[in-house]
């Protein structure tokens, strides 16, 4: 199936090429904040670096002397005020993002592979930690108390069927990392165990409230919800990613579970839990690569839940598979020959970020296509060739339609210059005024020597994927405009970036997408411009459609 797509890749809203890479030490794991304006990356030296995703520069670094062990996971609080990192020295550290100060550090008995902050609160003190080889637990970061969560249903007696024994589930629970995650409101924990069962756990009472077995019973390695909580995915040892539809959509998951339990009959506890489970999750799709039989790594949903991505777990390979939720493989992104260790989809844009074993973070985005209708007001791109039909008054000296256009100018309609539309991308409209979207950019003071050495660098960038546009002129006219130069005066050492054209924003895509069926008209004026500036300037530019504007390439 490699390389073959059943869905036209041109139609989908997913990335296609590597746009840029970020470098800072050796990064191991990543997480976007809620709006995707900041990207946190945990590093091998114990620090956590926060990137401003807009400028692709470092906004903040969280580090202290006490922790120098590699970070195993990084997680934002809901509105971006806190970050929790788990490290290879068994610790969990909670940071305050704005001040860059450590709030607490807790040390557990084992290193956590993953730690997630409670998703419902803006200053959470609870987190879910999944240790290396024992059951997941809820950790109270303030007190250090831990509550171990159940990872299996106790056998109900002679009536229970023995667990299926196949080559994918031969590891006993106590030595297998068990996957777990919070649901969207954070009142139920979904645990994926080594028997391939998904358990819905009420963590306050440490009780299993429902159980959903997966076919084949293979060890579950990852369990992840999409952002709006409608879908859940599991990644199992049988090389299959399973998508479930979440039927418990109310805000109070526990109450819903209580009600279901009341309403459900079952011969014994296990049967009852399975019966309740049927009403909580239903299997929607399964994904696997039947040819290469690949193991998957770091699977997750896109921001809107329409796409699912999974990385190839094979060594020496950096492949990202993209499926639509219906199970069709739409694209395989292939990066440099370095193993992939973490993956994230941007919450809002069709951008994927992947971490390679070498510590680099690659940013994948859509391939930019030239927008010809941008260059003159009347240009409109057409989908296909059109028969041009002349207007009745086309060749009149003063066409009627031109006159009509002028009259429209002084409309008496009211314009609203102040009202801003709500952001529809985020369903939870409890828009906290307090959400941290940006870290203040404090200009770092120039150093004396830098001011002297400041010469324009005219080095061209290596850009092997440059889709050559006929408008991009070689050479720099007027000695003025330079191509974007990789400045020799980097203040953050080692933040070299390979930069190619970045894709336009959503607004840009909207403007591009206007395809009105109008015949192409190009303005063909060539009168010289009178000099109207404060200072005398050279005004010898004649009009040429191609010269009017172009992108910086």
């Amino acid at each position, binding site marked *: 199936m490699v390389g073959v797509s059943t869905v036209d890749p041109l139609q989908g809203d997913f990335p296609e090429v590597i746009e840029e890479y970020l470098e800072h030490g050796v990064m191991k794991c990543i997480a976007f904040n809620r709006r995707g*304006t900041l990207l946190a990356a945990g590093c091998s030296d114990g620090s956590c670096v926060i990137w401003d995703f*807009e*400028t692709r*520069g*470092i*906004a903040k670094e969280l580090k202290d002397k006490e922790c120098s062990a590699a970070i195993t996971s990084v997680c934002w609080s809901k509105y971006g005020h806190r970050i929790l990192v788990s490290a290879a020295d068994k610790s969990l550290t909670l940071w305050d993002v704005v001040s860059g100060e450590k709030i607490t550090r807790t040390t557990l008995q084992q290193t956590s592979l993953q730690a997630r902050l409670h998703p419902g609160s803006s200053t959470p003190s609870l987190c879910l930690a999944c240790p290396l080889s024992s059951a997941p637990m809820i950790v109270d970061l303030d007190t250090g108390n831990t509550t171990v969560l159940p990872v299996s249903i106790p056998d109900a007696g002679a009536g229970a069927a023995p667990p299926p024994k196949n080559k994918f589930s031969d590891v006993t629970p106590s030595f297998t990392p068990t996957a777990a995650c919070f649901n969207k409101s954070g009142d139920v924990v979904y645990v994926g165990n080594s028997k391939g069962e998904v358990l819905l756990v009420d963590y306050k009472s440490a009780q299993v409230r429902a159980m959903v077995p997966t076919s084949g019973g293979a060890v579950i390695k990852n369990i992840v919800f999409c952002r709006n909580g409608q879908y859940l995915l599991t990644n199992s040892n049988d090389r299959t990613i399973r998508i479930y539809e979440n039927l418990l959509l109310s805000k109070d998951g526990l109450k819903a579970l209580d009600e279901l339990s009341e309403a459900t009959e079952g011969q014994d506890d296990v049967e009852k839990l399975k019966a309740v489970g049927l009403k909580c999750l239903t299997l929607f799709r399964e994904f696997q690569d039947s040819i290469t039989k690949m193991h998957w790594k770091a699977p997750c949903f896109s921001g809107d839940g329409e796409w699912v991505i999974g990385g190839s777990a094979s060594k020496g390979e950096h492949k990202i598979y993209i499926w639509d939720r219906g199970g069709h493989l739409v694209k395989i992104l292939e990066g440099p020959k370095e193993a992939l260790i973490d993956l994230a989809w941007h919450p809002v844009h069709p951008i994927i970020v992947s971490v390679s074993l070498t510590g680099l973070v690659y940013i994948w985005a859509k391939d930019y296509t030239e*927008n010809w209708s*941008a*260059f*003159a*007001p009347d240009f409109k791109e057409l989908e296909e060739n059109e028969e041009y039909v002349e207007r009745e008054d086309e060749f009149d000296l003063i066409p009627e339609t031109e006159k009509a256009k002028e009259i429209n*100018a*002084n*409309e*008496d309609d009211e*314009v*609203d*210059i*102040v009202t801003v539309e709500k952001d529809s991308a985020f369903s939870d409209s409890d828009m906290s005024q307090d959400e941290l*979207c*940006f870290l*203040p*950019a*404090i*200009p*770092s003071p*120039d150093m004396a020597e830098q*001011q002297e050495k*400041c010469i*324009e660098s005219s080095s061209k960038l290596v850009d092997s994927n440059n889709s050559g546009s006929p408008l991009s002129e070689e050479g720099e006219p*007027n000695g*003025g*405009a*330079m*191509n*974007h130069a990789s*400045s020799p005066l980097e203040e953050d050492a080692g933040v070299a970036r390979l930069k190619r*054209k*970045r*894709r336009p*924003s959503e*607004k*840009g895509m909207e403007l*591009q997408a*206007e395809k009105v069926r109008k015949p192409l008209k190009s303005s063909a*004026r060539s009168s010289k*411009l*009178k000099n*109207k*500036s*404060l*200072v005398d*300037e050279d005004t010898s*530019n004649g009009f040429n459609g191609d*010269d*009017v*504007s*172009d*992108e*910086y390439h």
Partner: protein
Amino acid sequence: MASSGQEAPPYKPYRQLKILRGHERAVSCVKFSNDGTLLASASLDKTVVIWSSATLSLLHRLVGHSEGVSDVAWSSDSHYICTASDDRTLRIWDARSPGGECVKTLRGHSNFVFCVNFNSQSNLIVSGSFDDTIRVWEVKTGKCLHTIRAHSMPVTSVHFNRDGSLIVSGSHDGSCKIWDTASGTCLKTLIDDKVPAVSFAKFSPNGKFILVATLNDTLKLWNYSTGRFLKVYAGHVNKEYCITSTFSVTNGKYIVSGSEDRCVYLWDLQHKNMVQKLEGHTGTVISVSCHPTENKIASAGLDNDISVRIWVQDA
């Protein structure tokens, strides 16, 4: 928004409150800070003065540019000021430091830097220059992220929209264009006539409309997604200078602009009629700025005037 049938509140005229003299040459630009506590005025005398908006006293003078300063912009938190100068550089200053300290100098333009603005997140600065280019700079490091060969003549005006994803630029070459911040590519050309020159362009507060001034005594309000203009404001004189105009939203909605006949003009946004002409300056009024919360306007005069005047509405 006044709905039909409702009487708009009667217009209260502005009157001159004070004349601020702090410069030795033409004042090129005035801007209130976003929190309304400070007012910055830039001048061809190479300095920028920071005034207290409440007491109207001179607080600091920012000295450092080697040529006249054409434009000034405030960061969203009102801590930093960025200035654009004929010495081809932009400078970022700390507005709170007592000595008026220059924190950073952004070099790269090869000719006068004419216009500058921060985005609302204030992690980026956009500048337009007589070298026909637009540059997008990263505030933190001062690195130039994009150099856009935007126009064929000097760029007179640059402005970010509300979320910083778009930049509008105007130029003497008669065009007004919209750029995508992330990629530096052109998204739309709003106006493409060779004449008249576009002397100023800025987004409305909600980012849906663009106010464009052209050197034929005209101000137009465009809906940039449809590419059509909706309102025309006229009656002032603007044939030579890049006069700035702005939206006044603190007490009814108005368009405010300077003029070459030494007055400040105010028009009703919806009805387009001129509601007041503020007289007092003795030279071209090149720049106006509206206080973010109070009914206060600041205006700057060119060579024959060299003053900053403050106008207020009586309660």
